[in-house]
């Protein structure tokens, strides 16, 4: 198992380099001039512009800028953003915010998705199954942007059950509403996948064999159906967690949560290659770790893949 983990981590390094280089190239190729964007509409004196361009190495060739960024990341000397923020401070401030939001919304999504999927899968074509299929169809069709603002208006502005935005009321209260919306929107896909997977497993030959051997219903469910039905779902959860970062950009903006998503948005807006690459590296590392975890979990659920 240790060799497996090590192999995966080593294999991730060249991929990480390619990914960061690609992202940096994309940011580099974006139109617009970050310092102008930062200055808004006021003209900036040439001397100030020159000082800033030199400070952030904006006149250096692409590859030099990339290597300087990588050096900053590897040495932990992150420097400041174009707007003057200390990047290390920002990470310390923002990583916990995003982690709290992500874990809470995942809890909602998994609890809802697994319960619904398993129940609907077993009681196929019952009224719960049918109404939830319809509900998830509707949920899948709602754009996040609309749902976030609608939920904010209804539950925070009108009903005052939750704070409107910000993190002043602490964890978990400040995070409940956005996490619930993400969880409810996200549970649809997970629930449907879980349901389908259960349905397929229930009809599989090995389940029939288990039943024919006279095993009790509980034992068939917990030892035979669930471990097998969970396999595709575990993969889905891994991918879903990785995609959370992109979604955070919108959620954090609407609920004014000072997390990594908002940081990423500012950095992309200002063409701040170094920050974008730093955040992508963080996302990449968490992606690798989550997938590693998924694969290990896979091995636990299905002994056959342990030695692959």
């Amino acid at each position, binding site marked *: 198992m240790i060799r497996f983990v090590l192999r995966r981590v080593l294999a991730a390094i060249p991929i990480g380099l390619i990914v960061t280089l690609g992202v940096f190239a994309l940011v580099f190729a974006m139109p617009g*001039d970050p310092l102008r964007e930062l200055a808004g*509409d006021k003209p900036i004196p040439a001397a100030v512009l020159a000082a800033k361009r030199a400070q952030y190495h904006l006149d250096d060739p692409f590859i030099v800028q990339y290597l300087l960024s990588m050096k900053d990341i590897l040495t932990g000397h992150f420097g400041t953003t174009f707007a003057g923020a200390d990047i290390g401070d920002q990470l310390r401030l923002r990583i916990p915010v995003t982690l709290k939001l992500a874990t809470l919304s995942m809890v909602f999504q998994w609890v809802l998705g697994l319960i619904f999927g398993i129940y609907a899968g077993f009681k196929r074509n019952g009224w719960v199954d049918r109404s939830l299929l319809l509900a998830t169809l509707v949920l899948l069709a709602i754009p996040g942007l609309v749902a976030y603002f609608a939920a904010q208006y209804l539950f925070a502005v009108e009903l005052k059950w939750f704070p409107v*935005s910000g993190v002043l009321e602490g964890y978990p209260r400040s995070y409940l509403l956005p996490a619930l919306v993400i969880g409810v929107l996200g549970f649809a896909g997970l629930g449907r996948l879980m349901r389908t997977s259960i349905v397929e497993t229930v009809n599989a030959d090995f389940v029939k064999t288990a039943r024919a051997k006279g095993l009790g219903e509980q034992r068939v469910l917990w030892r035979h159906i669930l471990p097998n039905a969970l396999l595709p779902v575990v993969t889905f959860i891994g991918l879903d967690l990785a995609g959370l970062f992109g979604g955070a950009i919108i959620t954090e903006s609407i609920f004014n949560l000072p997390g990594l998503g908002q940081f990423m948005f500012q950095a992309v807006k200002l063409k701040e290659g170094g920050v974008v690459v730093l955040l992508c590296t963080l996302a990449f590392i968490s992606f690798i770790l989550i997938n590693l975890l998924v694969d290990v979990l896979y091995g636990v659920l299905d002994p056959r893949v342990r030695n692959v």
Partner: protein
Amino acid sequence: MALGLALVLASCGDGKSSSGGGSGAKSETIAMVADPLEYINPLNDNGSPGIGIAMAIFAPLVQTDPETGKLQNVMADSVTPDKTSQTWTIKLKAGNTFQNGQPLTAKDYVDSWNMTAEGSNGWKNNGFFSKVEGYDALNPPAPAGATPKPTAVKTLSGLKQIDDLTFSVKLKVPFSQFGLTLQYLGLAPLPEEVRKNPDAYKRKPIGNGPFKMAGAWNAGDDIKLTKWDGYKGPQLPQADNITYKFIPNGDTAYNEFLAGNLDFVDVPPTKVKSFKTDAPDQSVTSISSGANYLVIPAWDPRFKNPKLRHAFSEAIDRKAFADLVGLSEPAKGLVAPDMAGYRDNACKYCDFDASKAKADLAAAGGFSGVLNINYNTSSATGQIFAEAIGNMLRQNLGLQVKYTGKQSSEIGALADSRKLDGLRFSGWGHDYPSIEDYLTPMFKSNGDANFAHYSNPALDAVLAKGDAQPDPEQAIKLYQQAEDIALEDMPLIPLYTKSNAYLHSAKIQPRVSKYVGVSALWATFK
């Protein structure tokens, strides 16, 4: 769109509040629709949130009286030009101090300004000092990619301390409006301990204004201010405590207001049609905030004939367009309507007249090729406005029109290198209340905001005469001549002047001034 500082100040600047402590202290919470600030140093900040907060913590030399529109002294005791308006003597009032107790002296101004004028410091208000004698020695041209080196010269030769409370500024050329520019908060003085190490004080500014920091301020925090008793300027704000809350998403800030958590917020563009019903009797609007234009690329030979520009202008139904924008009035000149010297019908070619437009276009020899209209993709309304203008030009002049969306910095960069194809939108708000601050930046050859790259020596000459004319009335007459020349050449087509709208809680009434816009900092408490 370029909107200048005043606009920005009016839109974000002020607030006071009233509830708060148990002893009947007046507190208010003001929304800043912006990313949280990283530092407070007005000399190194020209954005609206930073300057807005500087308005509370720092005091200017002079300010515009919100009632009369006249200049009044704040830290200055007198501001006196010489006969040619080239050398200005500024005398400070005695007895003012910084919030650390140090007396405020002429040396603080001279040293702070010299620091900002030195290009290698990279401070954002460096450009303000380009009019002062000796600026070039502190800002030698640096090769591309090189960090500008600190210069051996550390002081502006035009800046002289005369005694403890008096200093003088000698400009490169006469400038009759210089006194008006001194109200800019970007010229605030920094006390000696801050000047020695500005970074150490970036989150604990020491000002000379009506408010000071109420406590520690860390990255990402709201900014909490409390009244400072040492401020002796005119028009004391009523608030005892102010909290500036940073909410980058305008719609979220609006929702926070509706939930009762804010005392003052800007109405975001998405709510212009609904704010009056969302918050009945809790809104105010500013009378005007600069002016908005369509920019003609002066470097493109297809647009060379002024008759063609008149035709474009006459083909635009400004009333319909202003209605589309919302809270707007059709523009009838090149300056904002609240400026001294504004004339109601300065523009002869700004009335909608499709048949005259057609005739003028024919007289100009028509327009060849497809007309491109550039719009800013980061503005929600950019494309809608572009298509509205494009449709009017298409229908009324029979032009073929296309639209190109770009980031605003890219449009600016292309225009600067004279490679931008076609029309673009732009706007301007004054930094100081003078019609000169519309004409010089936008129409003088190489002006800071001369987006059209327009140049007319006759206009430059009239502007220079106005700058050298010490009598304000006479100066305005000369500036109006310059406006007439610009309107005849029409490098910019005036479109609309927009009002800004704000919501306020029941406990405060923001100050609304025809001259300085809406201010929550100077609100009245009920």
